[in-house]
């Protein structure tokens, strides 16, 4: 192995960066190159991979109690990325009609081959007040809408905390995302106003802890997509017990 060929200048630099011997200025240069040159970035990664087994030799040491609690406290307030992915999925599928058609077709095939399922009519849910705070999906997680579900009134009361009269040629549309269903529109809401939305029984059945409410920005008249929001989702929150 004494006759190993020299590394190319670029690879030597990548290896030095992975090893950690570069000074601050050279490190910055290496980071810039990694961002611009995929081949250089791959060299650095390959060298990190080669050297990483040195870390395997280190004995594990149990982390002190309490570290996890602190990590949890540092995570963003709203754990919504799964729902955001889903909303994006419905938005994209509204555009990619073929994928949606294929998916529905697959659904049909599955249904045909499934044995018949005995549907049990769910007993009427006992009245349970639920509420949700819909926080901004980008920037600071500040509340943009608050919602309360009142089963006695068979209604959802939603209050927009946005300044009244903002963005006149756009509307805010409220969506319910329950289980695996596609987002269901609950209607349009006006900035700065409260609204009482009467809910049909089948929607009431879906108002449960963990279901999500979202608000998207849509052209006048609401989303043109039958499958969910067509515009950006600005607020998102989860129904929970008061």
């Amino acid at each position: 192995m004494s006759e190993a060929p020299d590394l190319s200048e670029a690879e030597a630099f990548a290896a030095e960066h992975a090893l950690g011997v570069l000074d601050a200025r050279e490190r910055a240069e290496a980071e810039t190159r990694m961002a611009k040159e995929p081949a250089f970035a791959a060299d650095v990664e390959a060298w990190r991979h080669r050297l990483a087994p040195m870390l395997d030799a280190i004995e594990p040491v149990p982390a002190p109690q309490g570290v996890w609690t602190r990590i949890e406290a540092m995570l963003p307030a709203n754990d919504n990325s799964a729902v955001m992915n889903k909303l994006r999925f419905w938005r994209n599928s509204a555009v990619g009609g073929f994928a949606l058609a294929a998916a529905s077709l697959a659904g049909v095939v599955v249904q045909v081959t499934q044995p018949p399922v005995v549907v049990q009519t769910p007993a009427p849910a006992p009245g349970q007040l639920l509420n949700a705070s819909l926080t901004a999906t980008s920037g600071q997680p500040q509340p943009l809408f608050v919602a309360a579900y009142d089963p006695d009134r068979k209604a959802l009361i939603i209050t927009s905390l946005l300044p009244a009269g903002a963005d006149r040629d756009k509307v805010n549309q409220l969506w319910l995302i329950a289980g695996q269903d596609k987002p269901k529109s609950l209607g349009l809401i006006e900035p700065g106003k409260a609204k009482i939305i009467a809910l049909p029984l089948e929607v009431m059945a879906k108002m449960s802890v963990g279901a999500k409410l979202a608000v998207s920005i849509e052209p006048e008249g609401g989303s043109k997509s039958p499958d969910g929001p067509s515009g950006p989702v600005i607020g998102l929150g989860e129904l929970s017990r008061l």
Partner: protein
Amino acid sequence: MIQRSPSCDTTIGTALATAATTPEILSSLMTRIASGEREALRQLYQATSSKLFGVCLRILSDREESEDVLQDVFVTIWRRADRFDVTRASVMTWLSTIARNRSIDRLRARGPLAYAGTIDGLEIPDGADSAETLLSAADDRNKLQGCLSELDDRTQTVIRTAFFEGVTYETLARNMDAPLGTVKSWIRRGLAKLKGCLQS
């Protein structure tokens, strides 16, 4: 560095409670973290925090700072899990590398005093083969150890010191009382040999 192991059908909960965490389980946790599942991050923490805390401590030799870095590492994982390519890299390598790099950043932030010590007598404790170590990971490690030990002592020492302490050429040269260009050529030659040996 961690190869796929044939059996991984244990349930995640019990497997994580024991040390038998397979690469498959870690990969599936990463996918779930990328889609925003906190519970998956908690399970990853259970499975890997001791190892990563060990890495931080080895580099920083300070419990409080190591705790800070460990926190930072997991918040980073939470934010960047979507950038992790399950098909390309081993989860454990990725996590250990983040822990090592963050620790070294922290070490550097302490300022030049942190490098005042000499590098003589630097000992790398070689962790005993614990039962949980995957055979393939151990293979990678043994191969690297073998290749490192084929280098001359001085080159081995500078490479290990650089890796575990993130010291620059300049500091290495000062501590070893050798010209910077000389230290640089030791390391570059050493790395070239290492690559050749690992490939063979």
